[in-house]
């Protein structure tokens, strides 16, 4: 007999009132237990008013405490209820699966323990970024990295595509216990980027609007000024292409040959 208990992780989207899907709303309304991790205090109040019994995951964060511990505690607190046979809904801002480790990990664990678990997509900051900045990721391609991961690992980037760096406010933090890193760490990031981008290259500090009474932040500045720019936990760095795309003539020639052969077969 299948054990009771289930898990659904849903996203509220970025803007209060604008992005919540009907399906995700129904998960929130119908769950036995609701956990929430949202990015705006007014959005958290909205969730609390929708579900007065909703449990915020915010108190698990603490300056100086490793976020790996925080994430583990968040996951365990949700799993306690799933194991108790409850239908649990984890509510997250944006899309619960985009640059969000906790929803993926808790779903993975729930499934491993034999519980039904799934994720409902939501509108992420990435989606808002495309809309607000008028960027189509399909035009030149778009690379996304967590800023610190971009610094700690050797990545091959294509400067003829967009490059988006997330969690730029804590770029370079290895402790996972800080909520901001300063200019010295960002200077290292800028030096890394200057291998492919000139210091004058215009980049965009982007923050999606979370309320209908606020506007997105779309601050344009030279790459070099990232060192001293005011960056927040929810700031994303968008780096437009610095070079035109370069044709792959060898591949184009091979495709042309294939087209000829196909035409010959059909005629």
């Amino acid at each position, binding site marked *: 007999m299948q054990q009771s208990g289930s898990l659904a992780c849903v996203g509220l989207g970025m803007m209060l*009132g604008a992005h919540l899907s009907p399906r995700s709303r129904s998960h929130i309304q119908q769950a036995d237990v609701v956990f929430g991790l949202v990015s705006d205090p007014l959005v958290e109040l909205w969730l609390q008013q929708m579900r007065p019994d909703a449990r*915020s995951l915010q108190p698990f964060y603490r300056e100086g405490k*490793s976020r790996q511990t925080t994430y583990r505690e968040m996951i365990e607190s949700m799993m306690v209820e799933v194991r108790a046979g409850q239908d649990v809904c984890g509510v997250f801002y944006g899309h619960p699966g985009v*640059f969000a480790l*906790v929803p993926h990990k808790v779903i993975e664990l729930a499934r491993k323990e034999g519980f039904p678990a799934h994720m409902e997509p939501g509108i992420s900051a990435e989606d808002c970024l495309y809309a607000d900045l008028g960027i189509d990721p399909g035009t030149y391609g778009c690379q996304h990295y967590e800023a610190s991961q971009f610094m700690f690992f050797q990545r091959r980037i294509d400067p003829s595509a967009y490059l988006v760096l997330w969690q730029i406010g804590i770029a370079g933090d290895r402790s996972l216990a800080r909520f901001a890193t300063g200019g010295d760490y960002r200077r290292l990031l800028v030096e890394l980027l200057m291998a492919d981008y000139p210091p004058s290259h215009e980049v965009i500090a982007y923050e999606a609007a979370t309320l209908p009474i606020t506007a997105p932040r779309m601050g344009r500045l030279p790459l070099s000024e990232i060192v001293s720019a005011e960056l927040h936990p929810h700031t994303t760095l968008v780096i437009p292409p610095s070079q035109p795309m370069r044709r792959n003539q060898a591949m184009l020639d091979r495709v042309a040959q294939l087209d000829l052969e196909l035409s010959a077969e059909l005629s």
Partner: protein
Amino acid sequence: MSQVIQFLDAAGSNAQLSAVDYAASVAMLQVDADEKQALLDRDHLALATLLDGRSKMYCYINSPDSDEPEPMDDDDDGGMPEKEE
């Protein structure tokens, strides 16, 4: 539901809410004068304070290296943290 939160929720789903209609809608709300002014000023920080929203919100839920071993926190006793005052 708080009228302010309800109003913000409705405003978020109304793509055609003009500045004039916004101000008129705020004027009709049965809320405290401070809340009304904060809405008119579009001051979300003031609204959060007036409505006793959480003073500090964290939004990092991703780590750069998920393969790194977890640290041994000295004061990690697991479970839900105590409710904030």
